[in-house]
């Protein structure tokens, strides 16, 4: 009868979202993308690359500390040489630049590989580029990091919205968004790169008196970079072009590369991802992204950005980070890429990874740097991999490096984060210290062109390395690589990396299982369900749950729950997650974080919920799994403490007026889903079937079920019964007001809480206060679900909504800008109008708002609501006027007939047409109204579906018209309009519809992801908030005064 559909909607919404988490830390990957373009340039790189490889191999065997020391020294010596060479080069370059400040030439030269130039020069170029990446870190970081943060963290206030939005879309939608992000990053990077290059040169100069450190030099470097850009692009602002050029060159490079024997390389070069990136590069979006950053660069202040970034990071990672720090720091030192020559020691590669891993996971202060570093690495890997990145690795074991690191740390913290600081070599580190901040150039210098990053198979092999830090670094590196890179994720899967990662989840060392979990989270994110299935197939879900039970580390728990959230977005995995993890998630996360206590201590104040990331992730996961059908709902309802804890959390949110966050949204959505079909699915529901409603109450329950399943035909009968019941309800109505809730002997708990009239107030509070559209939709949906059905509880709920003055609240939401909210509210009103008194009230007070949402003729109202919403509104109107000529009359006075006839005749949507014609038929069925109708110029043909012209007939023949509806139409004609009308909605929303709705929802999510969507936790959220604010503020406060009265008074202001 009524529409229970709500659940599905929730589900859909839910599923979309889960994925977003991945990026949280993954920002690094983005960085990689840009590097690639840079890398492409010089052929020299390739050579270096090869060289690096061999070196690496050799190094591998040499583990001893002595050898490391030796290598460090050697590196330092090399560094010195390099510095000298750099200076020379710099001079050369500057000369050249001066000669021809011709950007295009320069660029071309670079990209192509400057064959005419001396080798050294080439190397320099390469280095510069690489450094630039690093440099970019500093500069770029701000934006990029911001982006990342945004994605992951809801809290970041400062992040640029555009970025955020992009990210969000990613979650929901997928790659597209991601690509954009990449692009953005790339752009930024590019910018940075240019700058960096300059900087690099300057850096050597530094000795001249420039304290390289960004502080002073940045301006100079900045200008230089600008010039370059000009040269390249010819247009400063048109970065995209420049980018595109670079990219292209990159591609070429890749191609050439692939020709080379090195398969691994080819791998990278061929990556689809890159290609995409390139394409994106050109796109406008980049440009857009780019611009915002610009100001930063111009400011020359890395600092501002850094400072900006840092706080955010801290928020995110703050707690977690610490554990890693020690390791990280050591790693960092090691990572410090020693420049060049240093051959990577055996661990060298690993170290790199570590650094990467750190970037991603590491905390806070360092992160900016890290991220940069990561970027570099990534790019290097993909494109040029070998060359630049490699070197830093070795530090790992070096005590010296560790010391350096320590020194740096304070430094870093205080200042803005040195972009690459960690990875750098000791010698470099020293430079940095001098400088105060690390200049990007330094970083670049450090990079040894000959070094390379490990390729994917190597990384995966390293996951099984006997030395734990190697494992953890490898995993961290994988996480980095996988960030927003579907291709890599797929490769990892195909290289059988996933089972190894899952195996590492049980590793006793926290560093190892944490990094493995981070990698899995990124791998599990995205549209590619194969990755999720692969995790499940190697028992990854129980392994994650085991780890959750075992660890107390918040960061690890965030990663676990994030991974689970991602996994839960794939239908077939939902039940697996429920089977393995439901109770654990409830006990370990939901209950403790909700503040609910089994046996509240009388003395202590009830605790408030804490909106932690872990709670958000877990509730998101449960939200997704709660949409997996009746069995899933049953499991969740019966999960001990879950409903109690969720309700407690929501109540605490209402109490604190803090209900716009994602966790609240998730909780409400779970509640809505669990409320779906309570009247049929809850144990003992039969006992509560409303005896007044049916002659044979017992049979009705079962019958109805069958009918619902049967579809429209069965539904119809149910409708009629329902209709009768409605009448009876009307008679009984008086009782309700005084009444009459069942006495309770013991406190309700568990799933019974779902449908106690007390929840009405909770939902109404949310509807009044929340500005999050998803929350509003879910709360309205919960009321919709609860007011459906004809058991005792739904009677109470319907009466309670009225008594709690919920009707005006709902009616006001009919004016919401959000399609989904309007739809959910309309359906809720429909169900509520089963109660006779509600029907009268809704008929007299909501009709105008309902009608104003309908399209009028060709012209859609400003809101331009979706078909589903229009159909829902029409069905609601139908319900309201059914059996109430009074309401039909107010429908007429609301000037709805015009609109209805217009829809009936001209709507492109068969469903709208059908729903409108049902309403019209019902209206015509009131003989007492016909006079008035005729006076207004209407006649019977306007109200008869078939009588309308051929176009209409053709419409009904449309393929889109489902068979089930046809019979309904006929029945409508023959039978009472009311009964048939009811049927229709069933059809639309019936149990079968459920799944459909879900799909639609998820689709729409993906679609909508661009704008705002559920997926992105924070994004949509933010947008919603803003919009809502806007709406609310627009509403004159005066009118709100009257809001208790359903009918909003027109506002009238004296001026």
């Amino acid at each position, binding site marked *: 009868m009524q529409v229970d559909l709500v659940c599905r909607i929730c589900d859909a919404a839910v599923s979309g979202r889960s994925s977003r988490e991945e990026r949280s830390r993954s920002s690094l990957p983005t960085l990689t993308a840009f590097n690639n373009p840079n890398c492409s340039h010089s052929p020299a790189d390739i050579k270096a690359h090869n060289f690096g490889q061999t070196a690496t191999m050799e190094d591998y065997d040499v583990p001893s500390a002595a050898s490391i020391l030796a290598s460090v020294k050697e590196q330092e010596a090399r560094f010195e040489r390099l510095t000298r060479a750099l200076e020379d080069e710099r001079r050369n370059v500057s000369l050249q630049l001066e000669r021809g400040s011709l950007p295009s030439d320069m660029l071309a030269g670079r990209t192509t590989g400057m064959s005419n130039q001396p080798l050294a020069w080439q190397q320099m170029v390469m280095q510069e580029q690489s450094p630039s990446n690093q440099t970019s870190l500093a500069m770029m970081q701000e934006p990029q990091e911001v982006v990342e943060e945004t994605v992951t963290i809801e809290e970041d206030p400062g992040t640029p919205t555009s970025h955020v939005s992009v990210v969000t879309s990613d979650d929901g939608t997928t790659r597209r968004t991601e690509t954009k992000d990449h692009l953005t990053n790339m752009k930024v990077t590019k910018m940075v790169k240019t700058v960096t290059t300059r900087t690099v040169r300057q850096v050597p100069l530094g000795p001249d008196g420039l304290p390289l450190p960004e502080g002073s030099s940045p301006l100079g470097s900045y200008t230089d970079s600008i010039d370059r850009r000009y040269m390249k692009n010819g247009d400063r602002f048109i970065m995209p072009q420049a980018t595109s050029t670079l990219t292209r060159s990159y591609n070429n490079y890749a191609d050439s590369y692939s020709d080379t024997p090195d398969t691994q390389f080819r791998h990278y070069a061929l990556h689809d991802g890159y290609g995409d990136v390139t394409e994106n590069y050109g796109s406008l979006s980049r440009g857009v992204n780019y611009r915002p950053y610009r100001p930063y660069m111009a400011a020359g202040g890395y600092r501002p950005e850094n400072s900006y970034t840092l706080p955010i990071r801290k928020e995110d990672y703050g707690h977690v980070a610490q554990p890693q720090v020690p390791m990280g720091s050591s790693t960092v030192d090691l990572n410090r890429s020693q420049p060049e020559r240093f051959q990577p020691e055996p661990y060298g590669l690993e170290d790199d990874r570590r650094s990467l891993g750190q970037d991603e996971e590491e905390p806070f202060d360092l992160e900016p740097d890290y991220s940069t570093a990561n970027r570099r690495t990534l790019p290097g890997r993909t494109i040029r991999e070998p060359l630049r990145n490699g070197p830093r690795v070795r530090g790992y074991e070096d005590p010296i490096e560790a010391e350096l690191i320590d020194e740096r740390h304070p430094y870093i913290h205080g200042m803005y984060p040195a972009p690459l600081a960690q990875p750098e070599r000791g010698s470099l580190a020293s430079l940095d210290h001098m400088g105060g901040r690390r200049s990007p150039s330094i970083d670049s210098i450090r990079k040894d062109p000959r070094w390379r990053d490990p390729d994917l198979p190597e990384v995966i092999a390293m996951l099984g390395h006997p030395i734990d830090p190697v494992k953890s670094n490898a995993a961290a590196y994988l996480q980095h690589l996988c960030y927003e890179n579907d291709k890599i994720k797929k490769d990892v899967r195909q290289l059988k990396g996933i089972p190894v990662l899952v195996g590492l989840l049980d590793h006793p060392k926290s560093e190892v299982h944490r990094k493995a979990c981070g990698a899995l989270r990124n791998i599990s994110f995205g549209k590619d369900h194969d990755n999720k299935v692969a995790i499940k197939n190697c028992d990854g879900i129980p392994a994650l749950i085991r780890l959750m039970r075992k660890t107390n580390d918040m960061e690890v728990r965030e990663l676990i729950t994030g991974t689970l959230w991602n996994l839960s977005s794939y239908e077939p995995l939902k039940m697996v997650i429920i089977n393995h993890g439901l109770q654990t998630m409830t006990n370990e996360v939901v209950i403790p974080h909700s503040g609910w206590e089994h046996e509240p201590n009388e003395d202590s104040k009830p605790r408030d919920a804490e909106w932690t990331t872990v709670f958000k992730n877990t509730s998101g996961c449960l939200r997704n799994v709660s949409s997996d059908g009746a069995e899933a709902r049953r499991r969740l309802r019966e999960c001990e403490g879950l409903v109690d804890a969720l309700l407690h959390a929501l109540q605490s949110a209402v109490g604190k007026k803090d209900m716009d966050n994602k966790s609240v949204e998730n909780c409400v959505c779970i509640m809505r889903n669990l409320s779906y079909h309570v009247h049929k699915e809850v144990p003992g529901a039969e006992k509560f079937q409303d005896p007044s409603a049916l002659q044979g109450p017992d049979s009705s329950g079962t019958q109805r079920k069958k009918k619902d399943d049967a579809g429209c035909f069965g539904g119809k009968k149910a409708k009629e019964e329902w209709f009768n019941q409605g009448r009876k309800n009307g008679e009984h109505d008086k009782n309700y007001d005084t009444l009459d809730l069942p006495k309770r002997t013991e406190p309700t708990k568990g799933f019974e809480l779902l449908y106690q009239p007390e929840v009405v107030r909770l939902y109404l509070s949310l509807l009044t206060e929340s500005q999050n559209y998803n929350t509003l939709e879910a709360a309205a949906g919960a009321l919709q679900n609860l007011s459906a059905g004809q058991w005792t509880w739904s009677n109470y709920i319907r009466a309670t909504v009225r008594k709690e003055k919920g009707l005006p609240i709902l009616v006001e939401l009919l*004016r919401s800008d959000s399609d989904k909210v309007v739809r959910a509210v309309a359906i809720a009103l429909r169900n509520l109008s089963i109660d006779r008194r509600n029907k009268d009230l809704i008929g007299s007070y909501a009709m*105008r*708002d309902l*009608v*104003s949402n309908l399209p*009028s003729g060709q*012209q859609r*109202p*400003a809101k331009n609501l979706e078909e589903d919403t229009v159909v829902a509104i029409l069905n609601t109107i139908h319900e309201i006027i059914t059996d109430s000529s009074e309401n039909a009359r107010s429908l007429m006075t*609301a*000037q709805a007939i015009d609109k209805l006839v217009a829809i009936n005749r001209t709507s492109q949507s068969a469903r709208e047409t059908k729903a409108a014609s049902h309403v019209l038929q019902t209206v015509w069925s009131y003989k007492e109204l016909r006079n008035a109708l005729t006076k207004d110029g209407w006649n019977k043909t306007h109200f008869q579906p078939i009588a309308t012209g051929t176009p209409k007939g053709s419409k009904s023949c449309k393929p889109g018209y489902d068979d089930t509806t046809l019979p309904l139409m006929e029945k409508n004609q023959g039978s009472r309009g009311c009964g048939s009308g009811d049927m229709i909605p069933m059809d639309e929303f019936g149990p079968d519809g459920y799944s459909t709705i879900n799909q639609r929802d998820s689709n729409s999510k993906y679609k909508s992801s661009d704008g705002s969507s559920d997926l992105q936790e924070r994004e949509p959220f933010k947008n919603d908030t803003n919009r809502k604010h806007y*709406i609310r*503020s*627009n*509403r*004159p406060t005066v*009118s709100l005064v009257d809001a208790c009265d359903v009918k*909003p*008074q*027109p*506002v*009238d*202001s*004296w*001026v």
Partner: protein
Amino acid sequence: MSYIPGQPVSVVVQRIEIQKLRDGDNLILGFSIGGGIDQDSNQNPFSEDKTDKGIYVTRVSKGGPAEVAGLRIGDKIMQVNGWDMTMVTHDQARKKLTKKNEDVVRLLVTRRSLEDVVRQSMMQQPTH
């Protein structure tokens, strides 16, 4: 008077300049407005087209500055000091009208009688 949002509109407008009356700290125009894109336009008794969400003059106080300036009940306000009033919220309109730092508001209003007058005069002229 109905129009499609975003499309140019041609209407007959009258320019009305109202000198605000100072009453202590308050500046008074002496009329009230209704409507706005956030309001239920169906309840606007003055609009011809019930979907018109424009700002309408709902009351004019006797002897107040607005009446003196010639504003009438039912006038639709098109502009205030050059600001468009056809696509604004009620509150935005109110704020534009009640700026503390402006002693004068210049309105562009339209009313049915204006249109009628123009139409008649246009029809008459040819006959002449």
